[in-house]
């Protein structure tokens, strides 16, 4: 079914409209864009979006990436004025320019950074500032590092900061007096110098990160608000938002808004205003099939939800075509387990449900993983039959299966016509109700033909006589031919046609032929249901024959054969059932012109 909605108008003051928007983003609220609501400027104007905070966010992200620091959104929002943010960003730009240059010059490896970390405690700025000491940092190979102990004249001191296999990261210190000599010694040892950074980037980052996080949080908050500005109409003194809330949630919604001193006006949606969004609400068994309805198109709020009918008819068709107790049980178990593990995988939930109907029909057909005899004792107990309840592959069963399929299809088509007529009555579309192909005329015509053909085959009665034909076939066909003039008549435009009667009658005669063909084709289309019953039994017969032929490898053939049939036929039957739903049934009653309920916080 479709959830009932309330159309709400919210009015906030310049002081509290931001809080209202933030609160709205946390509630189940479908907003209507201001641009769709405003007809002229006298009603107000859309709220202009200020790009300042978006630009600040972008700059903060760039600066943090440059400096190699992580900024994140915090739970508490600290407010800043635009001037404060601008000043802070200016300071960051200036400070981080040094960082950018240092990073560009250094291009240090992970190992270099690790070694440098050990040197950080001394202070890079202090090392550069020393007047009587001279520091150098870099890499030495292992052989050279071992030779350092051979220098005993104490003209330098060296400290190992990090080592990895054949490389050592060291820092040596000497006085400017010995600088040239000691540098030569290290150069002879193939010392690879690495520049000691002029600024300690990490210390700088650590200093600025807390405030960067605060500013980032505030800008993000404002940025999120900006996304909601498109729903706001600004009038002289108020900020107004219009949207939909489900009737079930309305009381809580109203309470939350009134806490913020926001004025709430609620009305029931009607046909003349905005089209309310569609939010489907079904029981657990039917709910996964909302996916298929959504794939076709959501129903309009003022129509009815076809999901239940879709679900039961789909399960019925699938079950008949894929009737096997064992395979159905596997599909059901697999589907339910997968749906439990991955709830977002709704097709798994569908598989679980159709697996159940497969089991039911598998039991009725007496088929268990292709074995057509194993269930006979159980069928004897349950149904009191002498032999198998229904032998699918028996020659005498073929016609009943195919005719039964067509009969099932006819019943489903008639049900769709009834749904269509109910909708026409709901929408007061009397012309379509009376003369439509899927209205009373079509229903009478199709029912008459079915009953007539049934009487002819059974031989118990005959209503396919000229009088009956004129009355129940000719009459409805003439009505279908005159559908458009009748529609115009009921709309108050008189019993007329738009392009002249000659043209209309010519077109309508061709349309009547198409209608007749549609009825025949749609009914015959359901013959595939019977076809798949036979095909499933046939394929499993092949598998069981192969099992008998292969001797000891029979079990393997049995498993692989069942898997093959399950995958191949499961897929085909699933698709064919969907085809019957969409083409043979939906086309008769379902228009699907609804829009989905979109919670504003989840919009991009």
């Amino acid at each position, binding site marked *: 079914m479709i959830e009932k909605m309330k159309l709400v108008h919210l009015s906030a003051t310049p002081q509290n409209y931001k809080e209202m928007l933030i609160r709205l983003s946390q509630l189940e609220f479908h907003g209507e864009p201001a641009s769709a609501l405003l007809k002229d400027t006298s009603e107000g104007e859309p709220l202009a979006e200020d790009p300042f905070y978006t630009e600040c966010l972008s700059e903060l992200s760039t600066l943090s990436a440059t400096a190699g620091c992580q900024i994140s959104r915090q739970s508490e929002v600290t407010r800043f004025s635009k001037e404060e943010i601008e000043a802070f960003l200016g300071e960051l730009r200036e400070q981080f320019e040094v960082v950018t240059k240092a990073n560009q010059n250094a291009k240090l490896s992970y190992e270099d950074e690790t070694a440098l970390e050990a040197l950080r405690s001394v202070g890079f700025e202090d090392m550069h500032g020393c007047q009587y000491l001279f520091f150098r940092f870099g890499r030495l190979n292992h052989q050279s590092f071992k030779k350092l102990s051979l220098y005993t004249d104490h003209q330098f001191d060296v400290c190992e900061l990090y080592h990895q296999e054949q490389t050592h990261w060291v820092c040596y210190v000497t006085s400017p007096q010995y600088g040239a000599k000691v540098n030569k010694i290290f150069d*002879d040892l*193939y010392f*690879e110098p690495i520049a000691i950074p002029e600024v300690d980037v990490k210390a700088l980052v650590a200093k600025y990160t807390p405030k960067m996080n605060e500013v980032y949080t505030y800008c993000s908050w404002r940025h999120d608000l900006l996304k909601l500005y498109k729903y706001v109409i600004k009038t002289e003194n108020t900020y107004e938002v219009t949207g939909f809330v489900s009737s079930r949630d309305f009381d809580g919604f109203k309470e939350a808004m009134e806490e913020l001193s926001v004025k709430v006006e609620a009305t029931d949606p009607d046909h003349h205003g905005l089209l309310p969004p569609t939010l489907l609400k079904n029981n657990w068994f039917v709910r996964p099939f909302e996916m298929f309805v959504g794939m076709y198109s959501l129903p309009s709020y003022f129509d009815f939800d076809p999901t239940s009918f879709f679900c039961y008819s789909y399960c019925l068709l699938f079950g008949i075509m894929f009737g096997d107790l064992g395979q159905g049980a596997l599909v059901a178990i697999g589907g339910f387990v997968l749906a439990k593990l991955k709830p977002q995988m709704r097709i798994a939930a569908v598989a679980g449900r159709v697996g159940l109907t497969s089991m039911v029909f598998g039991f009725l057909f007496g088929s268990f993983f292709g074995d057509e005899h194993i269930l006979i004792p159980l069928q004897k107990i349950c149904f009191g039959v002498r032999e198998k309840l229904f032998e699918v592959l028996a020659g005498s069963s073929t016609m009943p299966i195919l005719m039964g399929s067509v009969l099932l299809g006819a019943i489903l088509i008639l049900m769709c016509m009834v749904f269509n007529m109910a909708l026409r009555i709901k929408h007061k579309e009397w012309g379509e109700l009376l003369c439509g192909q899927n209205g009373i005329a079509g229903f009478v015509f199709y029912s008459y033909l079915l009953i007539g053909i049934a009487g002819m085959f059974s031989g118990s009665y005959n209503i396919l006589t000229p009088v009956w034909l004129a009355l129940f076939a000719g009459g409805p066909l003439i009505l279908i031919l005159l559908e458009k003039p009748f529609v115009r008549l009921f709309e108050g435009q008189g019993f007329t046609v738009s392009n002249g009667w000659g043209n209309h009658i010519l077109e309508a005669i061709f349309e009547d032929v198409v209608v007749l063909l549609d009825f025949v084709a749609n009914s015959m289309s359901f013959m595939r249901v019977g076809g798949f019953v036979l095909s499933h039994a046939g394929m499993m017969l092949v598998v069981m024959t192969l099992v008998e032929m292969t001797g000891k490898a029979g079990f393997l053939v049995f498993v692989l054969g069942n898997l093959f049939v399950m995958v191949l036929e499961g897929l085909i039957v699933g698709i064919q059932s969907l085809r019957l739903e969409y083409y043979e049934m939906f086309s008769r009653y379902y228009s699907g012109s609804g829009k989905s309920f979109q919670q504003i916080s989840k919009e991009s």
Partner: protein
Amino acid sequence: MELAYSANAMSAKIMAMFGKRLRDSDYESLLNKKSIGEVASYLKSQTYFSSALKDINESAIHRGQLESLIRQDLYARFSRLIRYGGRSEARREFYHYGLMEVEVSQILSCVNLIRNQDSTAMIAKLPLFLKHHASFDLANLANVNDFAGLLKVLQGTDYYQPALPYLSQSPEDIDVPGLESSLRSVFCQKVLDMIIKKRKGKDTKALIKVFSTQIELENIVKIYRAKKYFHLSGERIEEVLTPVWCNFSPKQVHQMVYDMDETQFLDALSHSVYRRYIDPNNFLYIEVHTKKISYDLNTHNLIYGQDPDLVLQSYLSLAESEIENIVDIVEGIRYHVPQDVIERLLVR
């Protein structure tokens, strides 16, 4: 039996290693490099030196470091190979000859630094990776300030007695060529003794020929350079030569040392057993020609030799030649020598 097995194993291992040598295409690629970093990068990524150079920073490597690492790799290969050579003391002693050349070279470096009064410069060049295999503690050379100190380090080794006569001389007057000759004579005599006393058969002759030819070629280089660049007297030249010859009689040697100038000397060589390699009209550097002689001899022995020690010695010489080629390329790039000139220096 042990030798038979090990001979097969060592020869097979050497052939496998030799198969990974640098090919002409590698030399072509190396010659096209524009910097030492590019050479190092190529050696690291495209040749069997990849494991030896895996930790280097190609963009900052010094040519000396590159040479040191690939020499270190050669010693590592040598150490791996001698494991296949059996466990007898005589064989282990024989394999020590590879190290003796390094030891002599380190002693001479130390003497040069004593003369220059700069002991710290020694440290950077010390091959400390050989520390546990050398006959004296190489690290002690770092603290030597005078010749007496050097003798103290060499005490108990085969080098002590040949070096002793040079003690009385002041640092500036130490006769380095004479000392070098004495030390190399010790080295040569020891190697030849080991071969002659402890081995027999036709491969022994080949091994003796390899070593004596090597020494003879060194003598030829010394004679030529002494005549061409230093204009030394015959007596002085004879003093710095190692008294080992295999293709020249004492009379011929005497004539070459005393009676010929460098042009006549080259002419004599061009009519000797080395005539295929030395042509006075197409002469480059004496070292290039002697290296080529050595290269061809060693290649022949490596391919056709039966004695594993002969194959080993040939492989080491060829590997040394390969390293010298790399060093020539690196030096050529460093000093912007034209590519075709560097190419002519390569022995392959």
